[in-house]
């Protein structure tokens, strides 16, 4: 509840054009990357940008979208279509081999918030449901990644 309220607060803040969240930093990384690609290709118009959102990081989609579009403007990039694709968090135990899907709703809000900033701290709070080991792999759903960038005319 605390996290939801927090995000709601930030969403309200967006209307005042003040961004305080760390999604902005993640958007900066993505836009810098797209900018580098655009320089290489000599094109500043992106017809489609597909971002993978690993659910482990509990990214606020609205805040991220706003941040990406604002940073695109600052960097003279035109993004015609921005698509987000959620990716479930799949974990695999290195001790017993058990693979499971993490239900984020089972985590405390404090834990969710910690994992939001640094997804690897999930190892501190989650154990393998079969053998209790904390030595597991995040197979899918860690955080943000660019899945596809299509430039206009490329």
């Amino acid at each position: 509840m605390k996290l939801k309220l927090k995000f709601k607060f930030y969403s309200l803040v967006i209307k005042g054009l003040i961004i305080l969240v760390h999604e902005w930093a993640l958007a900066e990384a993505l836009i810098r990357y797209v900018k580098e690609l655009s320089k290489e290709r000599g094109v500043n118009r992106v017809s489609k940008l597909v971002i993978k959102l690993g659910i482990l990081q509990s990214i606020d989609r609205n805040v991220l979208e706003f941040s990406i579009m604002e940073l695109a403007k600052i960097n003279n990039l035109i993004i015609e279509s921005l698509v987000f694709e959620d990716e479930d968090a799949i974990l695999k135990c290195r001790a017993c081999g058990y693979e499971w899907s993490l239900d984020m709703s089972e985590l405390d809000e404090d834990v969710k918030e910690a994992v939001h900033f640094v997804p690897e701290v999930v190892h501190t709070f989650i154990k393998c449901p079969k053998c209790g080991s904390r030595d597991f792999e995040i197979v899918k759903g860690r955080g943000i990644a660019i899945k596809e960038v299509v430039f206009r005319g490329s």
Partner: protein
Amino acid sequence: MGLDPRELLIEERLKDVNRVITVVSPKGGVGKTLISTALALILFKHNFNTGLLDLDITNPTAHLILGIDISKFSPKEEKGVIPPVIAGIRFMTIAYYSKDEAIPLRGHEIVDVIREVLAITIWGQLDYLIIDTPPGLSDEVLEILRLARPEVLIVTTPSPLSLKSCERLMKLLKDSQVSIVGLIENMSYDTNAKIVTLCSKYRVKYLGKIPYIRNLDNYIGRLEDFIKCEFVKYLENIAKKIIL
């Protein structure tokens, strides 16, 4: 798309940091975290804007030396995260997020944490950023050398085991053209001639020695007493050679 987008941001995050000094050691238990933390405190005392990053990802302990209850501090969110100021220094540690519990991580996971932390942490204007690392040529050390291109401060003890490891470390750093601030000989009563010889062989500045201080553990977590203790006084003389 081979490049991790976070890497493009790291240079930007460190652009207003005048000197980044990573403290490394060939072996564990040589007093690296004590030296990193005390050095940051000394630099602040000399009116330098100073940051301290505890990069011992699976076993962070710098906050214990600073004597803070980690559950009462957290970085402020502002287009990233801004580390809180503790005893005058901007202090960043994974312990804020791990709630001071164990974080069992493998190599590539540690690399992911380092990239994430460096990409989201906003240091602002700093004269010095001191980075504490785990011993040896760990993932933390290799990744920070690659991403931040820092200067390196070597800490060792006069133990023959440390000496051999120290030579390997110096050779590797020199081969990789890493800038070495110098070497501190810790827990040593008499200057070890072999360490001095090693330093001259690899053209590394021998910065000085700190003797073994019997009651040093008593000062951990008692910051006001720690900054006045004998260990910090010795390090203060050494720090002058780093600042110059």
